[in-house]
């Protein structure tokens, strides 16, 4: 190999940023974690909802959906526009002896107590994002994995959720598209 060519290759190797190698095999992986609720915040947007009923870009009579004859909201909700934030501690085992990170769910309520939830799982090797529909109080649900960082760069797949012992939630993260 000629010296100029070698020098050029060295310069190129240094100049190229650390990005996933093109053509690298796209792997898959499954991770099971147990989530224990750590904290929660519910946001009741009743006043915003009421203002939205009188001034909005739609020609719908939304009042009857939520308001009773007395002008108060029917039941306890959650109602459209409310949101709830859940913080979880994650463990690798059902006995909660091996901490595995944390998870955060931000859920925006729509109608019939269904919410669109954006979640992230903050694991030792990186971050995983998942989104999907969750019914209020529901324990079985599936989210789509929309991305990840570091070891989970470019991740796709899905998260299956099921109840576990002692008020925990089991999450099975099935990942594809890993480098």
């Amino acid at each position, binding site marked *: 190999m000629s010296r100029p060519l070698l020098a050029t290759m060295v310069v190129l190797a240094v*100049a*190229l*940023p650390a*990005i*996933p*190698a*093109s*053509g*690298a095999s796209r792997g898959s992986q499954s991770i099971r974690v147990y989530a224990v*609720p*750590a*904290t*929660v*915040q*519910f*946001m*009741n*947007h*009743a*006043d*915003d909802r009421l203002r939205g009923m009188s001034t909005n870009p739609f020609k719908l009579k939304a009042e009857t959906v939520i308001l009773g004859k007395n002008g108060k909201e029917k039941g*306890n*909700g959650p109602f459209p526009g*409310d*949101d*709830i*934030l859940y*913080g979880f501690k994650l463990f690798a085992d059902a006995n909660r002896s091996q901490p595995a990170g944390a998870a*955060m769910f*931000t859920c925006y309520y729509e109608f019939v107590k269904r919410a669109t939830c*954006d979640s*992230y799982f*903050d694991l030792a090797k990186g*971050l*995983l*994002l998942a989104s999907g529909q969750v019914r209020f109080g529901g324990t079985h649900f599936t989210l789509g994995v*929309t*991305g*990840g*960082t*570091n070891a*989970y*760069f*470019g*991740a*796709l797949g899905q998260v299956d959720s099921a109840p576990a012992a002692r*008020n925990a939630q089991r999450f099975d993260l099935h990942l594809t*598209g890993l*480098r």
Partner: protein
Amino acid sequence: MISRRGLVAALGAVAAGAAIVVAIAGCGGDKARSPAATRTAPAGAAATPSRSFVVYGKPKQAQSVNHADDRARGDKLLKSFNADGLPTPPSANSGKKGERAGDSALIIFVLYADRSLTRVVGSATYSCTFNFDQEAVCDGQFQIGAGTIIALGPAKFDGGENVLAVTGGTGQYAGAHGQVTSTRATGSKNTQVFRFELV
């Protein structure tokens, strides 16, 4: 509640150790009307090309939305939901200065191709919902050239590095995946360095 100026300053404080980013920006070059970029060609037929580039963002506008009333009503309702008897979120109602759980913020950046902020290449919007310990989940939309990059993830406004996952895009970034790392530009109060790594 922090002021708009405080919010911009806090964003500006997202920071530190940008040596690698700066190095890449430097070697990527400041080519006209496009962010400093490198592209690697696929090695195999089934391979996907990868892209890495840097843009510089200067906050232009910020709006903080204080949902204290919604939070207070929510706290009352939470009991009726029997939400597992969970503790009150840290910093949620502490009275300390700063964003609290459920508050939101919108920030607009002007994006530049070069460190000296002379060549505009687009704009970015961050829509953030704060959760606990002053951390927020941010939805970032980066309009760069002939496309948009969509990113999502947690962000702390404490001067540290933030990494969001890129979940998609439009136009020249359609189908993009990867991550974007933001740090404070060296020697700047609030200019952000956004380093994209896409596949």
